[in-house]
């Protein structure tokens, strides 16, 4: 049976060149970059090369890159770290309702600790309005944290405009760019963000490889104190092989970004057209144009997401869903509810994220399978039968 991974944001295989770059650092070059003897030399040099590659990908300076083990950690270091260094300046933080839980859950905790948090709403496409940001900023605001792109519905925020607003009022801006880096042209320097989180596993690097960009003029405090690794902002022996993998993935992404974006956008649009033209009762979630080139999010009316996911899994097609049943917390996606999607449509959401392995010749099979799976589940859905009766009565 065919196996088609359409859940690349959850996990995708390493690029061969990435794995190849990593391997010697598990064995031959096992040394510790902090060592005074020569065993540390090659790893230290490789680590700094990786840092430079990540910096180049987002147009930053190498010393502005702090390696972490996940984008969640980078988000925690950004927010908690900045607050710890700027507490005297105020107690107000602004973010948005569609952020990742590694931002939202921190803010809940900070609220309990006495911080005031404003979560900006989004429109039907998931966009934050810069004017609303402008109105929300007070003289007590010490941080704005808004994602570069949404990992679920793919909507790309007007980051330049949002940062400009914060900058004009002297408030530092953090962006969770985990879903965006490697898939959009992001220029940290030009955008003017103070802090930016990125994740290597989103663009061909290994899991456990991530980084926080901390602009030269931004002061933060570490979460993990100890040695002086990562300029004292993240203690602990560096995970050299993983970070070498991150560096290689960043290097490849920077070299081929334009081509990747173009190729993926074309494939995404082909898949979108095929599904919309052949599968009835589909609704596209997220922005129709301003979206990540590898992201598609649909709601399939009248049916539930986990049942779709399991049926597609039986056909060798792997996807995600924002339904209650697929979440550990048994709550449907906060992002879909924030864009105003009714509960029955949120329950029927499917997330497709494309990767390098996907190709156009998979589209007919994906389309056929989704069509038959949705049809089968729709025929047993009380919501669909109710809808048919209503249509009959109106006729």
């Amino acid at each position: 049976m065919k196996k088609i991974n359409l859940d690349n944001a959850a996990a995708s295989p390493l690029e061969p060149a990435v794995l190849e770059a990593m391997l010697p650092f598990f064995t031959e070059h096992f040394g510790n970059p902090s060592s005074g003897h020569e065993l540390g030399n090659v790893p230290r040099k490789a680590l700094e090369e990786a840092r430079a590659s990540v910096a180049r990908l987002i147009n930053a300076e190498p010393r502005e890159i702090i390696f972490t083990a996940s984008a969640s950690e980078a988000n925690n270091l950004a927010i908690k770290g900045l607050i710890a260094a700027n507490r005297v300046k105020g107690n107000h933080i602004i973010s948005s309702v569609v952020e990742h839980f590694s931002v939202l859950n921190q803010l809940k905790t900070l609220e309990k600790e006495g911080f005031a948090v404003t979560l900006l709403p989004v429109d039907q496409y998931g966009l934050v309005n810069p004017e609303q940001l402008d109105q929300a900023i007070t003289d007590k605001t010490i941080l704005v944290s808004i994602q570069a792109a949404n990992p679920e519905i793919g909507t790309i925020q007007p980051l330049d405009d949002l940062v400009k607003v914060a900058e004009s009022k002297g408030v530092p801006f953090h962006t969770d760019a985990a879903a965006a880096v490697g898939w959009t042209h992001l220029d940290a320097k030009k955008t003017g963000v103070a802090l930016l989180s990125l994740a290597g596993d989103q663009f061909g690097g290994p899991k456990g490889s991530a980084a926080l960009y901390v602009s030269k003029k931004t002061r933060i405090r570490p979460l993990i104190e100890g040695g002086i690794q990562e300029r004292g902002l993240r203690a602990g022996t560096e995970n050299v092989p993983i970070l070498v993998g991150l560096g290689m993935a960043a290097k490849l992404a920077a070299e081929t970004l334009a081509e990747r974006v173009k190729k993926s956008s074309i494939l995404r649009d082909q898949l979108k057209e095929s599904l919309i033209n052949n599968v009835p009762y589909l609704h596209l979630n997220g922005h129709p144009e301003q979206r990540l080139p590898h992201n598609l999010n649909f709601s399939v009316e009248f049916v539930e997401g986990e049942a779709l996911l399991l049926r597609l899994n039986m056909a060798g097609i792997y996807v995600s869903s924002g339904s209650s049943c697929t979440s550990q917390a048994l709550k449907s996606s906060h992002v879909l509810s924030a864009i105003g999607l009714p509960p029955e449509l949120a329950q029927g959401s499917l997330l497709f994220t494309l990767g390098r392995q996907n190709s156009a010749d998979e589209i007919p099979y994906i389309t056929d399978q989704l069509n038959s799976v949705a049809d089968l589940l729709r025929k047993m859905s009380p919501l669909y039968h109710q809808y048919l009766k209503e249509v009959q009565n109106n006729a």
Partner: protein
Amino acid sequence: MPDYSDKVMDHFSNPRNIGEINEPDGLGEVGNPVCGDMMKFTIKVKDNRIEDVKYLTFGCGAAIAVSSMVSEMAKGKTLEEALKISNKQVAEELGGLPGNKMHCSNLGADALHKAIEDYMEKQGVKAESAT
């Protein structure tokens, strides 16, 4: 993927007795789209026995498997026997359900009981069901 038993996957992959009985003797509905699961059971009763049972289900793998299992368990039973089918028994017959699915998706017996109660009400009898 949730940790579903082979029996759950069997009933999910090949659900039995799907549909809606025309002019049913009893109708029972539970759940709503907010929680993610909805079940609608219809029954046909003859000589105090469930002659036929069908259901429509909007929900996850567990909800579909539960509906299918309940329909199999109920068919041919007397109303009193069918009222004794509990959600717990259904889960046991399915070889267990993941912990977080026990409450939200395991509503099949409730929907069946509602259908029987609906029938009994129409007949002017009060029902006592297991939960």
